[in-house]
């Protein structure tokens, strides 16, 4: 069945489905009960599943993640909501040292199927700490899977995959696209969660992005089409591991790669893509991989965020520079 819904509600639907399918799935986070979360992603779930399965937690992110580990050891599958991106850092230790590594530490004896949902990225005019994109500093650590949907359909399926996975998953939600509607087919899942998808085919240049910038990337491709250049757009979807094969195949055809993300360029995912794709496609590249992203600054106050965020023009600029090589 296919229905149209905003991306945020597709996550709600996916959570609901996962909770129906498996009584061990529990949600925990700040304000996710009666309020339904500050973005209303868990709206209605506490009413339907009770306070034991939709848990308003004390205001302590390390505690939320740490106790979720304990629940996972007890056999539950906790799904955590972190209220905003930058509020995940108090839990950094529990995430990278415990969630990520307990499976390896116990020689595979213990699985920690915890999902950590993180609304991330900017563009909603919020104060500091509400607009960051910290995916790279989690992806650097082994043991975590990091994924980010860019459409309602993917959001619906990928959150369920994340919950079903025996590995811990960081689920980055493109918050400024929460209200973007899309068709969700609840019968046909489509692409596997850990594969990148060519969302628009093209021959002249490969443009890779993920999460909130995928719609922008498609706009870029449209704009270039008007000028007669054919941009192939890839939605990465999985940020760790990265499906390099799909990107490599594309770049070997187009000879050019631009990567765009909101996170700072310096040591962002674009760096890894540039390094690895250049290594894999050295003789195919007609231009160096170009990156467009956030700056080496704190995420700025909202009056300046239009300058910080990669937009149509900044990505076009990089595309043009690449094509000019």
């Amino acid at each position, binding site marked *: 069945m296919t229905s149209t819904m905003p991306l945020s509600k597709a996550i709600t639907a996916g959570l609901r489905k996962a909770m129906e399918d498996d009584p061990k799935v529990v949600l925990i986070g700040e304000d996710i009960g009666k309020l339904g979360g500050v973005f209303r992603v868990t709206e209605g779930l506490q009413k339907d599943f009770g306070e034991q399965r939709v848990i308003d937690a004390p*205001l302590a992110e390390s505690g939320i993640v740490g106790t979720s580990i304990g629940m996972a050891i007890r056999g539950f599958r906790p799904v955590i909501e972190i209220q905003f991106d930058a509020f995940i850092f108090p839990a950094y230790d529990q995430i990278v040292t415990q969630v990520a590594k307990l499976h390896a530490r116990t020689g595979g004896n213990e699985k920690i199927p915890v999902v950590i949902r993180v609304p991330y990225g900017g563009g909603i005019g919020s104060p500091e700490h509400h607009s960051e994109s910290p995916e790279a500093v989690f992806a650097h650590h082994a043991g975590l899977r990091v994924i980010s949907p860019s459409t309602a359909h993917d959001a619906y399926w990928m959150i369920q995959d994340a919950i079903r996975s025996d590995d811990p998953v960081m689920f980055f939600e493109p918050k400024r696209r929460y209200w973007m509607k899309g068709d969700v087919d609840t019968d046909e899942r489509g692409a596997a969660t850990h594969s990148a998808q060519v969302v628009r085919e093209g021959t002249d240049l490969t443009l890779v992005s993920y999460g909130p910038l995928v719609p922008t990337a498609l706009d870029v491709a449209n704009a270039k089409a008007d000028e007669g250049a054919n941009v192939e757009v890839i939605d990465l979807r999985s940020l760790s591991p990265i499906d390099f094969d799909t990107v490599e195949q594309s770049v070997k055809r187009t000879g050019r790669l631009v990567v765009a993300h909101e996170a700072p360029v310096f040591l962002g995912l674009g760096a890894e893509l540039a390094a690895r794709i250049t290594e894999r496609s050295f003789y195919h590249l007609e231009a160096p991989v170009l990156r467009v992203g956030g700056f080496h600054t704190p995420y700025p106050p909202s009056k300046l965020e239009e300058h910080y965020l990669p937009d149509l*023009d900044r990505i076009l600029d990089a595309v043009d520079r690449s094509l000019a090589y």
Partner: protein
Amino acid sequence: MTSEISAGARAKRQAGPHMIQMLTPEGERVSSGEYDVFAAELDTQDLFGFYRDMVLVRRVDAEGQALQRQGQLGLWAPLLGQEAAQIGLGRALRKQDFVFPTYREHGVAWTRGIDPTELLGIFRGQSHGGWDPQANRFHTYTIVIGSQVLHAAGYGMGIQMDGDVGTGDIDRDSIAVACFGDGASSQGDVSEGLTFAGAFNAPVLFYCQNNQWAISEPTSIQTPTPLYQRGKGFGIPGIRVDGNDVLATYAVARASADSIRAGNGPLLIEAFTYRMGAHTTADDPSKYRSDAETEAWAAKDPIVRLRRYLENQGVTADEFAAVDAEADQMAARIRAACVEMAPPPPAEMWTHVYSEPHALVDEERDAYLAYLDSFADVEEHA
């Protein structure tokens, strides 16, 4: 129905028998043992000063909310209902003390001499800060819950290292104040703040405004036991004060600050109060709390009770009206200042990332400004 009743009952039970109160909601002065000496120092004029403070900061707050509704601010975090908790604290401090606020400390900011217009930058998205923390010894607002409590503990350790505590010189002996909420009490950083201050016997006043809510979560989600007891197991005695009673918050904060100043070690105050408004302008409290609860607390309004008391002391209607007029003027000034704020120039983004030269920052800024210029060229040539 039942939930409304139990919400009221819960608040009552949580307040407990040990809460220091000096002015009842009806504006009657009740005795409060050892704290009465501090009240005795205040004459009607002083109390009228507190009244003026509270009315003005409530107006600042109303103006903040109005400006947000009109799109002039992106967000506002109302202090409505917490005026007594904040003014009483702020007026009990001395110039040399250093306050580490949350994002809701507009009343404390006022007592530290921060002009209300300076508060707007953060909420309008002009900047992440807004004032020089050192100028008034009032730190920038901290949004990440609990972080500032450790900063206060460390500052207190610094006071101690400087020997600026327990000398008996009232203009020298200093304290650090850690403001935090009931929700924040759950953060590990807050407990670590208690740990460090306790272990080093540092001159730190932990000031918890328990406004009953952390966004949609009632205090019972954070703790089964009254928050004023939180510090005890860290060696830090605590006391609960009626946070809607400015006389009591002042007296208890004065007594505590004096004791800490004298070198007797850290203390914790829980100001038992209520967030009468929404968490922020982005919040809809009707989703999670009852009208009955809000109304019960409205009857304990901190301004109303002081006004009643002052009326009984002979303050005239004209005098009260003068404060309202002053508030009107101030509101107009705030509004004008807000509307006039031009967006910061893009280069600002890179200006204070480092205080010393940084190759990457320079490179990025220059490239971006050149890129912006290229549009100017296009526009010029178009």
